[in-house]
C-alpha cells in the first residue's frame, strides 16, 4: 500500500488534471512545474537531443491541455497518463526523424545523447535518493533483461523490434519487460516507505 504522502500527491495531481480539463491555466502551470522535468528527461533520453526534446515537450503539454478532459483515473494515475502521452509523442517524433533520414546511415540517439545543457542541480538533488534505490533495482536485473528493458523504455523501440534485434523470442522479451517494470516499481516503493 502506498504511503499517505504518495496518495496525497496522486490525488492532488488528479485534481489538477481535472481543473486543466475545465480550462484552468493556473492548474496547467502547476502540472507543468511538476511533470516537465521528468518528461523532459524522458524526451532527452529517447530523442538524444535537448533541443528536439524541448520541441517535443511543447507538443506533449499542448496535448495535455487538449486531452485533459479525457483523463479518467479509472484507467491510470495522472503521471502514467502523461507519461504514456509523452512516450507516444516521442515515438512519433523518432519515426518522423527516421523517415526524414531514410537511406542515410543513422547515428543512433545514443551517440547524440551528450547534449549541451547543464543539469538542474536542485532537481538532481531531489531525484538522487530515488535514483539510488531504483538504480539498485535496475542493477539487480540480469544483464539481458536490463538491456531489453532500457531499449524498450528509452530507445523508443517496441518489444517486437527489440526481440528481432537481439534475436530473443517475443514472449521472452515481453515477460522480461513486465518483470523489469515490477522490479523497478518495488524499488521505488522501498524508497517511499
Amino acid at each position, binding site marked *: 500500500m502506498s504511503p*499517505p504522502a504518495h*496518495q*496525497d500527491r*496522486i*490525488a492532488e495531481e*488528479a*485534481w489538477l*488534471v*481535472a*481543473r*486543466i*480539463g*475545465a480550462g484552468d491555466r*493556473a492548474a496547467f502551470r502547476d502540472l*507543468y512545474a511538476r511533470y*516537465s*522535468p521528468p518528461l*523532459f*528527461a*524522458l524526451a*532527452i533520453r529517447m530523442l538524444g537531443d*535537448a533541443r528536439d*526534446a524541448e520541441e517535443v*515537450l*511543447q507538443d506533449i*503539454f*499542448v496535448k495535455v491541455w*487538449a*486531452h*485533459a*478532459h479525457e483523463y*479518467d*483515473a*479509472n*484507467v*491510470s*494515475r495522472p*503521471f*502514467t497518463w502523461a*507519461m*504514456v502521452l509523452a512516450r507516444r509523442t*516521442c515515438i512519433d517524433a523518432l519515426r518522423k526523424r527516421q523517415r526524414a533520414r531514410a537511406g542515410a546511415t543513422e547515428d543512433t540517439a545514443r551517440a547524440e545523447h551528450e547534449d549541451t*545543457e547543464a*543539469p*538542474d542541480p536542485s*532537481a*538532481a538533488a*531531489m*531525484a538522487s535518493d530515488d535514483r539510488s534505490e*531504483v538504480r539498485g533495482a535496475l542493477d539487480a536485473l540480469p544483464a539481458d533483461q536490463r538491456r531489453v528493458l532500457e531499449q524498450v523504455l528509452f530507445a523508443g523501440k*517496441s*518489444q517486437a523490434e527489440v526481440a528481432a534485434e537481439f534475436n530473443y523470442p517475443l514472449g521472452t522479451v515481453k515477460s522480461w*519487460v*513486465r518483470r523489469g*517494470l*515490477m522490479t*523497478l*516499481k518495488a*524499488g521505488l*516503493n522501498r524508497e517511499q516507505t
Partner: protein
Amino acid sequence: MKTKPELACAYVLGELDDAEQRAVEQQAAVDPELHALIDDYGAGAQAALTDLPARKPSSAVLAQIERRLDRPTASAPISHPTRLHWAALGAMAALVVAGIGLGTFAWLHHGQRPVVVLAELSADRTDLKQLRMEPGSQTAAAADRTDARFIGLASLAERLWDTSRHSPAQTGGYAVFDPSTQQGFVAVRHVTPTRSGKRYHLWVVDGKSGALRDAGELPLEAANHGLFFFSLPEAPPERGTMPGFFITLEDGATPRAPAGPVVLGHRPF
C-alpha cells in the same frame, strides 16, 4: 490475442495505436484487474525516469506552450466534463477520514449512475467550470448508505479546502453537491468581509427547470473565507441534469429570491 498483462504493458509503453489505446482505456475503466496492472507497470516506468539525470527545460518553453494554447486553433477544453476516479477521490477522502472505518468511499448512487457535482465558483461568472465525478464499481455496494455518502462528501470538501490553500489569492470557491441526498458543501476564499447588515447567500439552480432553491446564508461574519455545509429540502433530483450554484450579497433578513449582486457563480446569470 494479447493477455491483460501484455495489454497493460503495451499501453504503458505507448506501443498501441489509437484504436487499441482507446479500447484498453475503455476496458480498464471497468476492469479493476487491468487498471491495477496499468498502475503497476506505470509506476515501474515512472521509477525508471527517476534514474535519469534530472533535467529542467529552459524557462522559454512554458511561454512557447502557452502561446500555442492561445492560438485560435488550440484546443479549448472548457466545455468538456472531466472525470475523476473514485480512487483519486478516495485518496483525497482517505487522508481525512482515516480511522473512521469507512471501508469503501461511498458516494451517491441515484438511478444508474452515481454522481457528485463539483462546481468551481469564480468571480467573473462567465467561465463554466463544472466537473462531474464518476465512481468506480467498488462503490456500488455501499452506495445506499447515506451516512457513508455524507462522510465521503465532507471528506472531499475538506480535502479540496486544504488543496485550495495554494490557489492564487483571488476571490473564488467551489461547491460539492450530492444530488441524491441534496446535501453539499460550499467553500469561499478571499471574499470581501461583509459590512453591518449584509449577508452572503447561496442559491442552487435546478439544472432542468431553472428553478431557484434557497441553500441558506453563509455565516462568514467578519471572515473572508469559510467552508460551509448546506442541505436542500428533499426534491426528486432530475437525472442527468447539473445544478448551478451562485452566491449573492443580500441585505439583512433572509431573502425570498436573490436581490443583491452576484459575488460568485459558475455560469452567467
